């Protein structure tokens, strides 16, 4: 909350980000008009189903779309007063792995099978610390492996990725991402491939490390439980757009968008009594090549017809103060529907 006297730019600020890919089938509008910001020490959770644009948003921040010639990015991405969309490849390369780093979902495919895990961490360190000799870098890597809870780090340093178990491999990747003390850490479904007990360990680790290093963390996941565990602020994406955004407590306690209601209604929860039936969102997520006219959620929204045909003609804007929502329903009506129809079934 740096809107105080200095009026300084937030640590990470994304303004009207658009990402599209030109494919043979047409233009894939992966992200449309995404705007958000994040301060150091804060965690932002981005939730959405497959194809909602959550991963593409993070790839654009890291400049990883640059390897794809068909990607078109517009808008602004400011990281610590540097603009990244217009920055040169060289500039982005310097930041990537250094000031900003990423943890991927599948560590087996994110790590090189021919090089030892240790040598990959050493490489990541030396790229950003050119003057450092091998011995120091090795010590640093072993230290990082120990920090993320890998037993016998000196021995594991020489192992290959396939010799690690799933959870240990994910830890090793976190060690690699953190070796340069990144100020921004993006975790894309970091625990989706893991068992729950290991997931709990990894989430714990990310939380501890964030406290220690004070990084800004973006947590991308489809699992609302994981978001609730970590995030201070939550962004819900649908069809490439941010449709709801706010402090985690507000979004979970007073969700505003019918899609968010649907997501919460779809989840069986251990902290509630067993419901007779789940209340899923009907239908399937839209194709990003051919998004529905008006509000992208209208074919699946039970309340789409309530405002005449506005939902079918006009794209709702993201409105609100701290807790924002992109929905045509008037605020009072939304609250009423939530209290009377949605909440009793959650």
């Amino acid at each position, binding site marked *: 909350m740096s809107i105080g006297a200095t009026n300084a730019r937030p640590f990470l600020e994304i303004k009207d980000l658009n990402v599209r890919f030109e494919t043979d089938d047409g233009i894939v509008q992966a992200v449309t008009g995404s705007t958000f910001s994040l301060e150091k020490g804060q965690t932002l959770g981005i939730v959405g*189903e*497959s194809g909602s644009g959550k991963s593409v948003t993070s790839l654009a921040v890291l400049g990883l779309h640059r390897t794809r010639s068909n990607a078109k990015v517009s808008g602004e991405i400011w990281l610590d007063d540097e603009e990244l969309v217009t920055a040169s490849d060289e500039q982005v390369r310097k930041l990537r792995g250094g000031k900003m780093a990423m943890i991927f979902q599948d560590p087996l495919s994110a790590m090189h099978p021919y090089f030892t895990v240790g040598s990959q961490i050493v490489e990541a360190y030396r790229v950003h610390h050119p003057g450092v000799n091998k011995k120091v870098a090795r010590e640093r890597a072993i230290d990082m492996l120990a920090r993320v809870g890998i*037993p*016998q780090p000196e021995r594991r340093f020489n192992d290959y990725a396939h010799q690690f*178990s*799933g*959870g*240990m491999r994910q830890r090793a990747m976190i060690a690699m991402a953190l070796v340069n003390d990144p100020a921004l850490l993006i975790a894309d479904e970091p625990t989706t491939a893991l*068992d*729950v*007990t*290991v*997931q*709990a*360990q990894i*989430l*714990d680790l990310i939380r501890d490390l964030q406290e220690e290093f004070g990084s800004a963390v973006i947590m991308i996941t*489809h*699992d*609302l*439980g*994981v*978001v*609730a*565990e970590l*995030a201070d602020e939550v962004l819900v994406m649908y069809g490439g757009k941010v449709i709801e955004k706010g402090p*985690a*407590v507000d979004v*979970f*306690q007073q969700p505003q968008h019918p899609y968010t209601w*649907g*997501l*919460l*209604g*779809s*989840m*069986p*929860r*251990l*902290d509630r009594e*067993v*419901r007779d*039936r*789940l*209340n*899923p*969102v*009907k239908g*399937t*997520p839209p194709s990003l090549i051919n998004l529905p006219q008006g509000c992208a959620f209208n074919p699946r929204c039970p309340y789409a017809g309530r405002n005449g045909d506005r939902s079918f003609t006009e794209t709702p804007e993201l409105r609100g103060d701290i807790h924002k929502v992109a929905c045509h329903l008037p605020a009072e009506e939304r609250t009423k529907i939530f209290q009377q129809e949605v909440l009793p079934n959650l």
Partner: protein
Amino acid sequence: MSENLLEVKGLEKHFPITKGLFKRQVGAVRAVDGIDIEVKSGETLGLVGESGCGKSTTGRLFTRILEPTAGTITFEGEDISHKSVTQLRPLRRDVQMIFQDPYSSLNPRHTVGSIVSAPLQIQNIPTPQGLKKAVQELLELVGLNPEHYNRYPHEFSGGQRQRIGIARALALRPKLIIADEPVSALDVSIQAQVVNLLDDLQREFDLTYVFIAHDLSVVRHISDRVAVMYLGKVVEVAERDELYKNPRHPYTVALMSAVPVPDPVRRDRAQRDRVLLTGDVPSPINPPSGCRFRTRCWKAQDICATEEPPLVVRLDDPASHQTACHFPVVEDEAVAGRRPAAAPA
């Protein structure tokens, strides 16, 4: 209702590890290592556990896709443990399977029509209204458009493909369906649609399910009875509500406390109450002696290394609640914040 449809006793499946030119056996992966359980007619039995605990192998043994190394499988009073493929054919009418991956479990070169009609043709089931009509009825039943009869699997989304797999499993009107992680590859909203569909079908056709999954909340939603597996063994089994309210085995307790709760207000409490297990699941090639969970258990004592705990009723639990543990967790026991001693490497 309480009649046993399927019963297994001492079920084992060891996959041999071979070495050298003559395939000399040097060891075995003990994927399933002595399971006794029954599936009652009309119920849904949930099988939960982490990856590598043998839950999928168990499912495949139940359907006799795999042949057990030891033990017996009895379906409707008939021993099917070692029947040949031809002898098993009549059984296939009664026991069907739904697979996890809706992409690899459907032949990409076959149309939906031929995929769903294959079981009917193999089993020579007469379809008085015609094969096409029969398939279209099945498609409609699982919520697909019957006109999509001639489409190929790639033309469908993940959720729709899973519905095709369900239609195929239903074609023979089986009594028992083994569903191996049927929703874990699907998006949350689609997952809920498929869970509801399975619910409806069970009611309509009196189906018995064995629902294999790693997601404890989905298992709780769908099951009547739940068995928790760890390293090839059932460590705890009970009626659903009993198990979730009153877990006895330390592993069950840890597993449940690890599930993230979608409520940020409660997160501090959830984190405080969490039992963090250290280390990984040991290798099933060389499982720990005695109780297999002892290497990660915070309650382990000397007896746990020497004596394997039997799966029996503990404390004053109902007869249907069995736990394989020397030191079951009692209610209100302060497990919170307990962390096991550093795991031996």
